[in-house]
């Protein structure tokens, strides 16, 4: 126990004396959180659309009015010719092309079905997806309106038609503010990156400098060495997490709906897991460069497949299966659940179990693979 205290003290002394480490711990997370949160804005507005109206009816005019009024679409051009529209799409002048066929209105009323053509530039998949979704909503809306209007004109229909109305309300993030959604996720990303890097670097650095050999000839026990290393880094990790929460509150006005206790309980275990990963990497690397590249390999996969930049539901099935092994995914889920939805410990028990097992396995691997030899 006393040995561990000496090691912990040494670790803190070294961190606070390291001119390169301090800004990484104190300044970098704040800057990253601010820059990334402001930049990662997935909201889609002002999609440019091209308008081909071969019907020139009341219904088609109504549709166009609705598009303009929605706030999502801006007219980029109009023509009677499909070729012009295709050219605009190819040149990137427009994002979508609406083509209203002749007899659009007639078919809609007489046969109660009609179609319009929508061509979308899908280079940016999420933009295309959302654009199509918005357009679809607006068209459905119009169809509904027209049908009720038509039915009400019929003389022999005194029965009140039941109107189907779709109204939206966005739960847990009422203003549809992307920052509310992104900031907790980016916070997870920072804790993961810093945790994995500092633990991998720290141990490999001792190997590079040669001091680990000196420790290895002392009677330090394996568990003392590992706890002596992990404990200070664990404190730093939780400290990072706290800085992140403070920035989220002061800069973005995001406070946690759920209890901070739940959040910190999960974060504590999660950081043990991340540090274990870094330590495991350090057991089979010789230089800081190697450790850096291997950590980076894992982190890129973890972060890009964590559900922060691409929703996991939108991934192909095999990729979704892979994300089940991605610890970042669980922490992002939990942070969002707790901070935005106010989830309690019971709601996140499955994620907690997964991360706790993960932490156990990776740390066991690290301890097993760490040899007290030169």
């Amino acid at each position: 126990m006393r040995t561990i205290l000496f090691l912990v003290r040494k670790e803190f002394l070294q961190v606070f004396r390291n001119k390169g480490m301090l800004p990484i711990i104190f300044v970098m997370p704040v800057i990253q959180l601010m820059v990334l949160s402001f930049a990662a804005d997935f909201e889609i507005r002002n999609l440019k659309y091209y308008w081909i109206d071969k019907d020139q009816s009341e219904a088609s005019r109504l549709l166009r009015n609705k598009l303009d009024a929605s706030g999502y679409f801006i007219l980029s051009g109009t023509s009677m010719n499909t070729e012009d529209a295709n050219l605009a799409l190819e040149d990137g002048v427009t994002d979508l092309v609406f083509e209203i066929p002749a007899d659009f209105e007639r078919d809609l009323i007489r046969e109660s079905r009609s179609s319009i053509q929508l061509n979308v530039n899908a280079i940016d998949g999420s933009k295309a997806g959302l654009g199509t979704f918005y357009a679809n909503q607006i068209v459905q809306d119009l169809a509904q309106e027209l049908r009720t209007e038509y039915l009400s004109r019929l003389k022999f229909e005194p029965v009140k038609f039941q109107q189907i109305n779709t109204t939206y309300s966005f739960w847990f993030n009422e203003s549809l503010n992307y920052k509310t959604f992104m900031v907790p996720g980016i916070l997870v990303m920072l804790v993961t990156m810093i945790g994995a890097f500092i633990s991998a670097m720290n141990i490999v650095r001792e190997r590079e400098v040669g001091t680990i050999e000196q420790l290895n000839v002392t009677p330090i026990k394996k568990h003392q060495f590992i706890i002596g290393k992990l404990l200070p880094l664990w404190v730093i990790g939780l400290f990072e997490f706290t800085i992140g929460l403070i920035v989220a509150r002061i800069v973005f006005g995001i406070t946690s709906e759920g209890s901070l206790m739940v959040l910190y309980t999960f974060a504590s275990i999660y950081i043990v897991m991340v540090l274990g990963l870094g330590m495991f990497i350090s057991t089979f690397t010789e230089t800081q460069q190697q450790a850096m590249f291997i950590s980076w390999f894992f982190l890129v996969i973890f972060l890009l497949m964590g559900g922060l930049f691409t929703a996991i539901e939108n991934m192909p099935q095999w990729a979704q299966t892979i994300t089940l092994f991605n610890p970042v995914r669980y922490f992002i889920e939990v942070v969002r659940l707790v901070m935005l939805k106010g989830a309690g410990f019971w709601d996140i028990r499955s994620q907690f179990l997964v991360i706790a097992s993960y932490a156990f396995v990776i740390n066991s691997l690290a301890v097993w693979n760490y040899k007290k030899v030169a």
Partner: protein
Amino acid sequence: MTNEKIIEVEQLMKIFGSFHAVDDISFDVKRGEIFGFLGANGAGKTTAMKMLTGLLSPTSGKATVAGFDVYKETEKIKKTIGYMSQKFSLYGDLTVKENIQLFGGIYGLKNKVIKAKMHELLGRLGMENSANALIDSLPLGWKQKLAFSVAMLHDPSIIFLDEPTGGVDPVTRRQFWEMIYETAHNGTTIFVTTHYMDEAEYCDRISMMVDGKIAALGSPDELKKGFNAQNMDEVFVGIAREGKVLK
């Protein structure tokens, strides 16, 4: 020096793949002796030392250090020995005082003992004014004397020195050897590797390693007589270049 054997090595081997780094060596070291381990770079000195300090497990053979087995009792060995390696081994970003406290603590010394030892040690090295200086800011000679003293902090019965004087000026080397003599005089066994032949003269007994084997073993005088040489340099060249072996 007594006749009690504190290190006993029998047919010790270390094989990396097909390379015999240490190839069937046998020797023993007596308590209080200064035992020199000589040889060219890559002769297997460091590998042999690593096996004796519990850093490396031997491939085959037998060895005990202070009565403890090098296969099974490495942790007990580690408590009894001190070690200073050629790669400088104190923490450069900690101060002199902090290093002493750290290693004292690791060896389980009480705070009072650490404090007393630090006082005594700094006084002996004349470094009272540098207690709060970072190790990195000290000249190499000081660092090495300090590393030696820190390795002696827990009063080990054997101290292993792996090329302790590499890169140090002659005056400091001289002072360093005076420290070694003093330590041996107080009953500590010294196991030292070096490739400075003049340093070999300071040892009680020497073993010369060539290609993982012990080519010659004896006191400096015995070796010089056996090889008909004026000094240790000639002995070394005789063994290393011409492959002469003394039985």
